């Protein structure tokens, strides 16, 4: 921003103070939570002394561990599948023209704006009906469980992946793909050697988003999970409704730190790629894409 457009000193100072207040607001709860997870006391809010007691308890709690395991499996599978499908969708919408493209474009945006409660309701009813029909047809009674959770997570992640990859793809000079063809590359070779490496940051960004959405999800999972399987967020959610315990603090801190580490790695990956002379898409691009409509 040039000097001629700069704000006055006084305004700038006020803006600065506001900014620091906002940062304080954003981080204080997180920091407090982490600190309290190391509290020795049974009572959550009264600080006695630091200890790892609750972390030990957490790792010994079978419920927590199995929920964690489920979360990771679900997140991994749904991320991989939705990233592949979502990337293919982005390519089809961005580079090709076919009948039904407009409709597909519209349908693909819906999961992004629909609130998770509605999504949960939709999938609950769907599986209920589907299992009923399958029971009538095949005599086999399917139940909600890990598979239904995975299928549901994929359903809402595909669109998010597609939007991020599309944003990246649209920034790509499409004469690059023509150049590859001009240099004797087949469609697949051009994709593998030119397109894919250049959209890789977008694909990674989309995958990260899908991963986060899966690990974060509460309502949809709650509705489509069965008696046996539960995920970590849903389990914690259940616990919290019954009351706050230090164990939850510890679990929460682990979840928090894990997600922060994930972000750190992804941003580090982005910085590295930038140093190698590429521009990258990030969540801004996702929001850019939405705000550009």
């Amino acid at each position: 921003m040039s000097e001629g457009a700069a704000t006055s000193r006084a305004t700038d100072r006020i803006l600065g103070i506001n900014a620091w207040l906002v940062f304080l607001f954003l981080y204080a709860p997180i920091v407090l939570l982490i600190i309290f997870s190391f509290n020795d006391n049974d009572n959550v809010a009264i600080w006695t002394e630091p200890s790892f007691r609750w972390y030990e308890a957490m790792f010994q709690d079978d419920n927590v561990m199995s929920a964690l395991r489920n979360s990771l499996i679900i997140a991994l599978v749904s991320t991989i599948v939705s990233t592949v499908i979502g990337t293919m969708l982005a390519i089809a919408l961005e580079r090709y023209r076919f009948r039904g493209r407009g409709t597909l474009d519209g349908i693909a945006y819906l999961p992004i704006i629909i609130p998770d409660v509605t999504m949960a309701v939709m999938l609950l009813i769907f599986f209920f009906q589907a299992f009923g029909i399958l029971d009538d047809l095949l005599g086999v009674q399917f139940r909600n469980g890990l598979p239904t959770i995975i299928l549901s997570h994929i359903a809402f992640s595909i669109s998010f992946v597609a939007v991020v990859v599309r944003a990246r793809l649209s920034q790509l000079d499409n004469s690059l793909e023509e150049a590859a063809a001009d240099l004797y590359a087949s469609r697949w070779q051009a994709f593998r050697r030119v397109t894919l490496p250049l959209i890789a940051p977008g694909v990674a960004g989309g995958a990260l988003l899908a991963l986060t959405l899966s690990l974060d999800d509460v309502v949809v999972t709650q509705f489509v999970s069965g008696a046996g399987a539960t995920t970590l967020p849903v389990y914690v959610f259940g616990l919290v409704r019954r009351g706050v315990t230090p164990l939850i603090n510890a679990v929460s801190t682990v979840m928090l730190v894990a997600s922060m580490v994930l972000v750190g790695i992804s941003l580090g990956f982005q910085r590295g790629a930038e140093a190698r002379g590429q521009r990258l898409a990030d969540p801004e691009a996702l929001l850019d894409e939405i705000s550009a409509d």
Partner: protein
Amino acid sequence: MTAPPVTDDQTTVAPVTPELEQAAIKAESRRGFFISLPAFAYLVVFFVIPLLLVFVYSFATRDATGLTVLEDWNLESYKRLFSPLVLEIFLRSLILALVTTVICLLFSYPFAYYIATRSPGARNILLVLVMIPFWSNFLVRTYAWRVILGSDGPVSQMSVALGGEPIRLLFTNTAVLIGLVYGFLPFMVLPLYAALERMDWRLVEAARDLYADGSTAFRKVTLPLSMPGVVAGSILVFIPSLGAYVTPAILGGAKTTLLGDYIVSQFLAARNWPFGSALSFGVMFVMLLATIFYFRAGAKTL
């Protein structure tokens, strides 16, 4: 010099005719369709059909045992949408979502403006600092407020230390509001930042050159140009806030029911799927209206 011409497959290559051109265009089109097919199929099965099912269910009836009977199609569920209780819940949720959006906007705009006007190096660092909470687990971030606002929590303790009554914020609408603002603030910041960052600041310079002072330049140049960001951010905050479930469940009280929880309870406790479906559709309809409204309002200022 240049290589001699290739002659092997010459017998089969013909000059182009309009029919051949059309065939080539169709082949390309088919290719694109097939690439989109996995996503298309998946979304139709796991999204469009479920959506249609909800629509169908909203006209169904609920029998005595709580099961849904797909006969006796009626509009009872929709009629119930206009009952006083439902309208009250809806209004409460609407106001809460609006207030959340406004508060987010009020604090995010200066915040985003500040970041957008720093040097590129500082900007990057600040953005990373905003991203970290954005990507962190939503449930946990909301839970943190549960700890803080509890009657034994730091907020309470602080007010006692200052010689007053212990503040009981938990399980109130205010707590939910704080939780929603906290959860969705980054959703407002990022589009605003994106819009401000891409703005051509020379236009502000031009305004200054034409005798506008700071606040006029802001009002007439910066604000309208950043409208797309305001619109995008508002939608991204308003819509999830309207349908919020987790945040009110953790921070809200039993006395103040909001839409999210009300819908969920139709499917868990109350077992009235048709009504729950009608509610869901009603909420979606309002959200669609809100989206259109925001876009129109945003476009008008341009």
